[in-house]
């Protein structure tokens, strides 16, 4: 019974199912925030996750991976961020309701009252800091820091993984070349984060939890954080085994697992499969469709959007900021687009110019 359940989970899990279902769950969460942040819903999800872990821990392989010292924080992170997302959303929903009713938000209600830092804030800080210290000490007592064999440049462990907080990037490497996944995307993430205050200029929602008034901003942020960052980290940590092959949560990491690598480039798709002619010899001819596609992706949607959905935004931000905003959004969306292209068409590169290490 349990085994067949685990086998079922293993067989249905794949990057595409996990990613898609996460996106669906996310959509549900932001579409029905009120229901999602109700206590029963929260408890139900908590219970579900606990049951999953409970079952999982009976599995030797799952237990090994989850209890690897450096993976423990990620398990904690799931619960912590799950809870705080739920909690923040809950507060936002409460405030939204108050705003609807014309009442001030919880924070606004108290906005003119000031309390003495000593003792009220200081005490909270101290109690929390002490509790935090206790947590750290207990963590240190019960979990030994890992120490493997001495470094050996001639023997690489399989899989070799980056520290867990960079595993999202390592997971992106499946879909993009290092120069994008390892350099371009992180740069865009940092720049994008820095740009948030300059792109979201709506003064509403400052200093209190709210959702309704900031829906697009929060959805984009949460999508980026949960789906494109945390989910990828979880996949990279728990579901990627030797040779960076995908493994179900209860699947043993077999070094010898072989999966077919039948990815093709866009140029091959077009010239060989669809047109039935050979690949052009010149790289710019060969890659012309890909380059055009990428350029079109970067140019056409902003123009269309500026006229339609983002009309107001365009007006509010002006051309420069609008371009930056759209560019950031496009790069962000490029990741799931590339993922789905890969899953649907085995597409390897849109543009493949290995001569210049320039592959997209």
């Amino acid at each position, binding site marked *: 019974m349990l085994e067949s359940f685990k086998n079922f989970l293993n067989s249905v899990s794949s990057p595409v199912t996990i990613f898609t279902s996460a996106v669906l769950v996310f959509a549900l969460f932001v579409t029905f925030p009120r229901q999602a942040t109700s206590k029963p819903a929260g408890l139900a999800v908590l219970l579900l996750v606990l049951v999953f872990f409970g079952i999982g821990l009976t599995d030797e392989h799952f237990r090994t991976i989850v209890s690897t010292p450096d993976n423990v924080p990620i398990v904690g992170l799931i619960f912590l961020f799950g809870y705080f997302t739920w909690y923040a959303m809950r507060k936002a929903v409460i405030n939204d309701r108050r705003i609807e009713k014309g009442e001030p938000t919880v924070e606004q209600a108290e906005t003119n009252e000031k309390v003495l*830092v*000593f003792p009220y804030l200081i005490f909270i800080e101290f109690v929390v800091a002490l509790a935090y210290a206790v947590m750290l000490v207990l963590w240190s007592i019960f979990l030994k*820091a890992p120490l493997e*064999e001495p470094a050996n440049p001639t023997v690489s462990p399989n899989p070799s993984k980056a520290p867990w907080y960079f595993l999202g*990037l390592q997971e992106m490497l499946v879909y993009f070349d290092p120069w994008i996944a390892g*350099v371009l995307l992180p740069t865009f993430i940092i720049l994008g984060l820095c740009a948030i205050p300059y792109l979201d200029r709506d003064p509403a929602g400052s200093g*209190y939890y709210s959702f309704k008034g900031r829906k697009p901003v929060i959805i984009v942020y949460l999508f980026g954080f949960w789906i494109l960052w945390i989910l990828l980290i979880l996949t990279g940590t728990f579901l990627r085994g030797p040779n960076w092959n995908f493994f179900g949560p209860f699947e043993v990491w077999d070094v010898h697992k072989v999966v077919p690598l039948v990815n093709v480039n866009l140029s091959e798709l077009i010239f060989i499969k669809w047109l039935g002619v050979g690949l052009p010899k010149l790289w710019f001819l060969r890659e012309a469709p890909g380059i055009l596609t990428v350029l079109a992706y970067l140019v056409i949607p902003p123009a269309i959007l500026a006229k339609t959905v983002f009309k107001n935004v365009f007006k509010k931000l002006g051309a420069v900021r609008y371009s930056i905003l759209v560019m950031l959004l496009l790069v962000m969306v490029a990741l799931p687009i590339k993922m789905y292209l890969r899953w649907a068409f085995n597409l390897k590169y849109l543009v493949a110019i290995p001569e210049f290490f320039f592959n997209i």
Partner: protein
Amino acid sequence: MKMNIGKFITESQLYKSMFRHGYSTSERDRALSVMTNVFFHLHPVKVRKSGARFGFTWCAGGLSFFVFLTLVVSGILLMFYYRPTVEYAYNDIMALREHVPFGIMRELHRWGAHAMIITVWLHMFRVFMTGSYKPPREFNWVIGVILLVLTMLLSFTGYLLPWDQLAMWAITVGSNMARATPFLGHEGPGAALLSLGGIQLVHAGSDVRFALLGGRFVGAAALLRFYILHCVAIPTAVVVLMSVHFWRIRKDGGISGPL
């Protein structure tokens, strides 16, 4: 009699020179507690009631700072035992595990580092959800983002120091990406264009990864570089930026709240 001794102490010049004021529940004493204490003085005397609530801030920023302090202390203790050379690094870490008194400092430091990343992410998450990056706090948000990146770099540079397989290969995987930096990495797009008289300027021995590692692969030079980055360079930057961060919180109106 007992009271007298207490009084004798609290009224002595020595005591008064140190504490200056009493410990009573009077408004004045409480305000003085904050104002006359260099540590508490990070805070204003009074804060917005909503901002003081745990439910609002989750104390994530404060905890990030606190765990940073823990890491500084445990890190300094570890520095007494650790030598960043390929001959000794691994042995020193093993010594911490096997027999050095309070070798648990290493656990505290490692788990503290993980905890700090999580708390910093949480802090950013909270700040975003309360819209606290909005004017006038835009720039402090930017500093916060930089601090977040620095936090991860601190952890990343520290990851190499045990010099075991886990460390070396995590750093190898992480730093391999630098190879593909456009123009600056020898396997990055555009690097081939940078040449002078047909001689490649960016190659494995001159690219950005080489600069980071001090070599073509993760070796003795990388260990030393990461050590210095981990113990000196990045913490200094973090401390400086943190000061700015804290100072700006005060200057931007304290813990955020509805306008």
